[in-house]
């Protein structure tokens, strides 16, 4: 991905704005309404500090959801992101605790995430299994590997040098937010500006026609899963930076939040459709909901209920607005 990074346009924010589609505008309006409601109910909800909090709390889900969006656009799904994150987390933490240099540990963590994605991609693209089944299988497999590797115990004692990297802040903005923002810009460029982005949309839109038109189907699908694995690993690094420890059971049910963020943001589980901006907004909607409800001291049970309802409502609005013509 390094060459893509280096050739990134210098003013992506302006282009991001220009690309705000009608669907993204809808998601943005949804976010604004939710923010407005909480602003009325919770004093200090719109304070600078709380807004930064919301972004930070959304960052891990947003990171996972970006990879998920690319996979969903390609017509697939990645249920294995949580366990992939767990493997990356325990490996990175173990290397750090064993005294290996921080860059090496990070590279190993991200690398193992990509390997997990590669396995998913190969099973989908070459063996021809259905993405849901493949990643359902690796969901258990990867989790088991993380548990076996650690004997079920958390890896404690992640050094401060690593933690400051992922848990620090620049000019008041948490590093995790900066990292995910950069990832989002790169993902946006990949989707909108590179051939692989066009291929993802084409393969998800009509795989047979894409094949006949010479699109490299296998490469496209594998790329999506590898990116998803990489971003799951990155998300886990953010988490162990925050916690200072890596648990093999970390990342449980992350896939559901990520799918929800992507779907709220306009990704179609049928493939061929999805938006990076939308997914980021979707992740922030979910993060803001949780933050607001927690500040209101709403019990966890009701938070779950609210999250479920917001997903259903978002999808119904999506359906109704697309139903015309």
């Amino acid at each position, binding site marked *: 991905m390094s*060459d893509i990074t280096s050739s990134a346009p210098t003013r992506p924010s302006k282009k991001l704005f220009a690309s705000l589609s009608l669907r993204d505008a809808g998601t943005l309006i949804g976010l604004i309404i939710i923010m407005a409601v909480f602003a009325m109910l919770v004093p200090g909800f719109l304070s600078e500090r709380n807004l930064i909090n919301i972004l930070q709390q959304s960052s891990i889900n947003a990171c996972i959801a970006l990879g998920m969006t690319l996979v969903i656009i390609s017509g697939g799904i990645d249920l294995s992101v949580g366990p992939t994150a767990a493997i990356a987390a325990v490996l990175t933490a173990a290397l750090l605790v064993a005294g290996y240099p921080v860059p090496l540990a990070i590279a190993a963590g991200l690398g193992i995430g990509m390997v997990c994605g590669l396995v998913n991609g190969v099973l989908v693209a070459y063996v021809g299994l259905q993405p849901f089944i493949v990643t359902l299988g690796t969901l258990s497999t990867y989790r088991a590997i993380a548990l076996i590797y650690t004997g079920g115990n958390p890896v404690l004692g992640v050094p401060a040098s690593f933690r400051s990297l992922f848990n620090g802040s620049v000019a008041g903005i948490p590093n995790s937010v900066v990292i995910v923002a950069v990832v989002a810009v790169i993902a946006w460029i990949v989707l909108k500006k590179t051939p692989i982005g*066009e291929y993802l949309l*084409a393969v998800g*839109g009509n795989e047979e*026609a894409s094949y006949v*038109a010479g699109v490299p189907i296998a490469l496209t699908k594998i790329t999506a899963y590898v990116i998803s694995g990489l971003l799951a690993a990155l998300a886990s690094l953010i988490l162990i930076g925050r916690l200072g420890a890596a648990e093999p059971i970390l990342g449980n049910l992350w896939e559901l939040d990520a799918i929800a963020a992507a779907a709220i943001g306009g990704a179609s589980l049928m493939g061929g459709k999805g938006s990076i901006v939308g997914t980021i907004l979707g992740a922030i909607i979910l993060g803001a909901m949780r933050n607001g409800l927690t500040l209101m001291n709403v019990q966890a049970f009701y938070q779950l209920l609210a999250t479920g309802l917001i997903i259903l409502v978002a999808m119904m609005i999506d359906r109704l607005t697309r139903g015309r013509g």
Partner: protein
Amino acid sequence: MTARLRFDGITKTFPGVKALTDVSFEIAPGEIHALLGENGAGKSTLLRILSGVGKPTSGEFYVDGELASFKKPESARLAGIAMIHQELQQVPNLTVAQNMFLGHQIKTAGGVLVNRREQEKRAAEALAMIDPSIDPSAPIKTLKVAQRQIVEIARALLDKAKIIAMDEPTSSLTPAEFERLATIIEKLSGLGVAIIYVSHKMDEVFRICHRGTVMRDGKVVGSVDLKDTAEADVIAMMVGRELQHEEHNSFVKEDVRVEVRDLSSAVTHVRGVSFTVRRGEVLGIAGLVGSGRTELLRLLAGVDTIASGTVHIDGSVLKLTTPRSAIAAGIGLLPEERKREGIIPGRSVSVNMALPSFGKFSKGGLVRHRAVSTSANELLKRVNLRPFQIDRAIRLFSGGNQQKAIIARWLAAGSEILLFDEPTRGIDVGAKSEIYHLIEQLAAEGKSIIVVSSELPEVIRLSDRVLVMRNGRIAAELDRDQLSEQTIVAHAVGDAGLKTKSPQQEPSHV
């Protein structure tokens, strides 16, 4: 005698569009009535109203003299109206009988369980009237399209249909299967059922229909007795002008561009095919459905796997493994099933055009979208895309314009060898002649073109030379001066030596 069906001043408006204006005509019991017109003429809208899917804005229609007002498709069915859609609406995994009773199953005495035995008995009775060879307990997916169509007709008989509307019923039938369908339709007509027959194929319409109503721009141009009307006059009514009969132009150059030697497929029955195509040549491939024409094109386009044999381009052997390798060698396929194999429906026309060429349109790993739109503007203008909106989703365009976009796709990719599979299937008469002109222009530029078509006039109009395929092999090669429908059909069914005129024999295996 009361008309079986009478439309009286049907008008249908959608926001901003008047789809039907004051449509009035009638059909007698037992009449086979052709509904004619180009795509967008309003035929589908009228059939939707007839089948209770849509309601007219004003006007009414009468079945056997009784005012019909359908709130939903079910009421149209109960009133004796059946639709046979072009894309058959059946559930592949269910049996013939289950499909025939879908939505209104026969229950056992208790009213809870489905009485399969009774369903199969009644299905068999209905099938016996038209084709007793179909087994009511066979899964639909094991039947050929022609048989599945017959199942739909039998289903209509079960519903005691008085009016059966058929939308392009023969688009995937062989000539022999068409003859069988024609016999069934005539039988239905004898029973007093009125048939509405929608087809672009004029020869079929004139062969089986009694009368026809021509529509254009949502209005009835006229209803005519087909026995005393010439085909050219009907087409003139449809398009609103005379289509001049066009002559074949030849642009064949000396040098051979494609040479295929002893090619066999690893996945289909195509065996030992050899031929050449020159620069500027249009090679036609004729044959029955299932004779291996489409499969041959798929081999050349790298979609199907080659078992043995070689393909040479400009004298050197081509390693054909995937569509990508074919495209890199300058081969472009325009598939028959555009929706399934041609287009990415939700993406814009320009993206659909650029799809194989994104590598070419990129610099430093990034797509130069400006270069894409420059190219799209030029090429889509050249193929005369209408409406000229290159950023509009391709699914919103007519079949003819989607085909033009796929032609532009291969122009953008710089393809020199174009493989057209049924280039004008489902495309209306006006767009058809545009596609013919484009193919001719491409040949004039020196491109090599292969055209597979079931429409013999089309093959004869376009081709410099024709290969006739039968059972996966080339049965004959005909030069331009040998081309006639009779010769091609004779070679296609395999009795060229016998000089029979009947194309009713089934190929020995398909």
